[in-house]
């Protein structure tokens, strides 16, 4: 199975019309938008679209006409998620998206000079360390095209003059990382949120362009630290399929089990943190108590607890620990059922939590598709977006499980999806754990891994949504462009939509249940 993609090339002028017609054809989900610098060919963007009904994908590539002053039409009127993706591409490549109402930089500082992902970027333009604090602009930037063909820049204030703006973050207990929400309040009611990201952006994608493929792997665990297995799985799978390597059955099954363990880990942490955000410290510690058991299993087999470094290109790093099967049985038969019972008793059923979560932060099915909110957030709104079902990979085609979906799309449903998914994950593991096939745990690889020239895309179902890897190779030992579809970025982007009109306390509930991880957003 090859994951090579051949994007259909569309002229910049026809881009918007083409994408609109594709959307009408049923490609209604913009899975990922990748800015690329093709050198001589120019700067451009690859749009990856998915049919939500079938999971079928198509890719559209568009190159900007002008390299000095590149611009493309924005598609944020077709997909709300495009707004933030385009900001990312603008930030890194300087591609201006016309008519995007808010085309500011998103990760880099406002005073950053140049666009670092361009191949001709000169590092010396910016100081090694910025010594003064970061200026945060109060103005949204919009680019439009004048009649004479020049790009015009208009600035509009983000907040009104009389808005009562409270900073939630960057150092705040419940933003789950270094995230900054500028929140405008009317009494205690949220009227607008402006998310400011990039405080811990490490430029993993940029770094990867100078790294060999095994070295790139080392960085994946540091993105979504609660989806370390899955992120690494995605990159390994992408490289393996691109190189045409078939990993053994044993590796497929091990990876599936590990992904599910990681998902349980992530969902338990989700529960704990939500409880903590809502002030139920005791429930929080019960969650951590049970999560410890999973970490112990990881520690024994992988040698790490959070940074697991387990999947390798062509296999896995270690064979399973002799205690693995026994420990996992104890986990899924004793620890997790006991834990879940307790979570439901102390927290789920609690009238305070029920009233705080029910009907709060409702996202409809159309909203989640438009905003690209995959994972539990999407499934809570009734969107069947589980890649394990849509495009099965690893050993998911040989296990039976239910895709948990709900209808209302409120905080309570988002919470319930994840708690139910813990049970489903246990079920998947139960089907696999007793008959892990024998086989090599590592395919024989050349010492220097080179991916054949081409463009590749692979995605897995991460702990909190679709985690995609877009890889463009020129046949070298380093990737030409490596882009991750982060699960968190669309989720942070949807916060404004979900929180408007709710109370300040609801912002915490909604943020908790939407479940984003900042290192994943700030890659």
């Amino acid at each position, binding site marked *: 199975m090859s994951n090579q993609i051949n994007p259909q090339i569309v002229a910049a002028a026809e881009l918007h019309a083409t994408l609109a017609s594709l959307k009408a054809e049923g490609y209604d989900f913009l899975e990922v938008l990748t800015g690329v610098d093709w050198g001589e060919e120019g700067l451009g963007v690859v749009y990856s679209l998915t049919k939500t009904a079938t999971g079928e994908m198509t890719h559209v590539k568009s190159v900007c006409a002008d390299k000095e002053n590149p611009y493309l039409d924005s598609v944020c009127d077709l997909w709300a998620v495009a707004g933030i993706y385009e900001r990312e591409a603008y930030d890194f490549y300087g591609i201006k998206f016309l008519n995007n109402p808010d085309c500011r930089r998103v990760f880099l500082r406002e005073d950053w000079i140049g666009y670092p992902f361009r191949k001709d970027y000169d590092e010396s333009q910016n100081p090694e360390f910025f010594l003064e604090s970061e200026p945060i602009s109060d103005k949204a930037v919009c680019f439009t095209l004048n009649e004479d063909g020049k790009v015009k820049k208009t600035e509009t204030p983000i907040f009104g003059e009389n808005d009562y703006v409270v900073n939630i973050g960057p150092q705040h207990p419940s933003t789950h990382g270094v995230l900054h929400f500028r929140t405008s309040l009317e009494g205690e009611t949220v009227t607008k949120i402006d998310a400011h990201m990039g405080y811990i952006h490490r430029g993993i994608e940029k770094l990867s362009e100078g790294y060999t493929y095994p070295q790139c792997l080392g960085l994946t665990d540091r993105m979504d630290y609660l989806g370390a297995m899955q992120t690494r799985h995605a990159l390994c799978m992408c490289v393996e399929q691109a190189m045409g390597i078939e990993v053994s059955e044993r590796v497929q099954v091990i990876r599936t089990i590990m992904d599910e363990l990681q998902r349980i880990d992530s969902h338990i942490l989700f529960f704990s943190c939500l409880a903590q955000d809502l*002030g139920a410290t005791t429930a929080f510690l019960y969650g951590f108590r049970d999560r410890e058991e999973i970490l112990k299993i990881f520690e024994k087999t992988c040698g790490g607890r959070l940074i697991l470094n387990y999947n390798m290109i062509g296999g896995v790093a270690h064979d399973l620990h002799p205690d693995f099967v026994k420990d996992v049985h104890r986990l899924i038969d004793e620890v997790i059922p006991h834990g879940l019972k307790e979570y439901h008793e102390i927290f789920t059923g609690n009238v305070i939590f029920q009233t705080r979560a029910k009907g709060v932060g409702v996202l409809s099915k159309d909203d989640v598709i438009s905003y690209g909110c995959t994972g539990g957030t999407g499934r809570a709104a009734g969107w069947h977006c589980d890649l394990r079902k849509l495009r099965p990979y690893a050993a998911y085609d040989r296990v039976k499980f239910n895709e948990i979906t709900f209808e209302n799309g409120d905080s309570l449903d988002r919470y319930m999806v994840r708690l139910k998914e813990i049970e489903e994950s246990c079920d998947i593991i139960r089907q696999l754990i007793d008959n892990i096939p024998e086989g090599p745990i590592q395919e024989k690889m050349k010492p220097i891994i080179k991916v054949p020239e081409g463009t590749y895309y692979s995605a897995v179902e991460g702990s909190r949504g679709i985690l995609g890897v877009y890889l463009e190779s020129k046949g070298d030992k380093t990737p030409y462009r490596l882009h991750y579809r982060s699960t968190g970025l669309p989720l942070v982007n949807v916060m404004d939509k979900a929180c408007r009109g709710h109370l300040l306390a609801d912002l915490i509930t909604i943020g908790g249940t939407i479940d984003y991880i900042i290192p994943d957003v700030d890659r």
Partner: protein
Amino acid sequence: MFDFNIVTQWLDTLLMSFLPAWATVLIECVLVALVIITLYAVFAIVMIYMERKVCAWFQCRLGPDRVGPWGLLQVFCDVLKMMTKEIVNFRNTDQLLHHVAPFLVITASMTTFSCLPWNKGAQIIDFNVGVFFFLAISSIGVVGILLAGWSANNKYSLIGAMRSGAQIISYELSIGMIMLAMICLTGTMSFSEICQQQENLGWNIIRGHVPAVLCFILYLIAGNAECNRGPFDMPEAESELTAGYHTEYSGMDFGYYYLAEYMNLFICAGIAATIFLGGWAAPLVPGWEQWNHIMLYVPGAVWFVLKVFFVLMLLLWERWTFPRLRIDQLLTLEWKYMLPMTMTLLVVMALCVSFGFVWN
């Protein structure tokens, strides 16, 4: 039962015998003040330690056990830390109000603390409208909180203070209603008489049976809210407002809030012990002469403290189980549930008393 009046009278006559009246009063006042401050500090330390340990046990943890045996010295270290911390003055704060606010809170807390009847004859403030006085004084604390929020020039503080104002004023109503219901039963507003009555006639929670028990439960809820403690800790709701009204305080200024919060909890438990569980009255059972005989040997203060810690345990249990309410839920709870219930209970209690439907 040991009457503490013997000690105070003896001291008074002793001082009067060789000192003028004004000097006697002065010395007595100083002594009383010292006693209050000492008790206040000692119980605060005990409570902080207790809260940490108990909450840890609820959470499958051990709690502090690094400093000293079983972590006993932890609280002392914390106090030392707080006292040595710098008090930071921010620009653009209202300096005067900012520094006055913690004192208002601690003063209110200490004055209400003085209302507690520790033993027969061992009560610092005792007069015929003691309950009324207690309610009046305890409301002063909210002024300190509002001032803190206003003067800090910080949005978190302001939101926290406003929440606190709404919350405390609302729940004061419930507390007042519950107190009224119990006064119906006792017929007196003096704490010492309430205790004395309970020693003679049996505890109020038993005398008042169903309505009294319900009052007790509602009091525990309202009391927790009154003390700004979880699940009603919205004013500081750390996950929303970082630290609410005391965000901008550091060092001992913050320490006063911290201290007052814990002591308000103690006072809340103390009042519950007094008006429901007999205060310093020993658990006497009519007919069990020998049992009663032994019980009466135990000083009343011991009974009082035991009862207070029993109530505290209940409050901690509640505190560490539930998630925090949202501000509108909090007000709904008060105005739609608690207040109608307490008002009904007041009527029921009045009917019980007037038709003699109480156990004496």
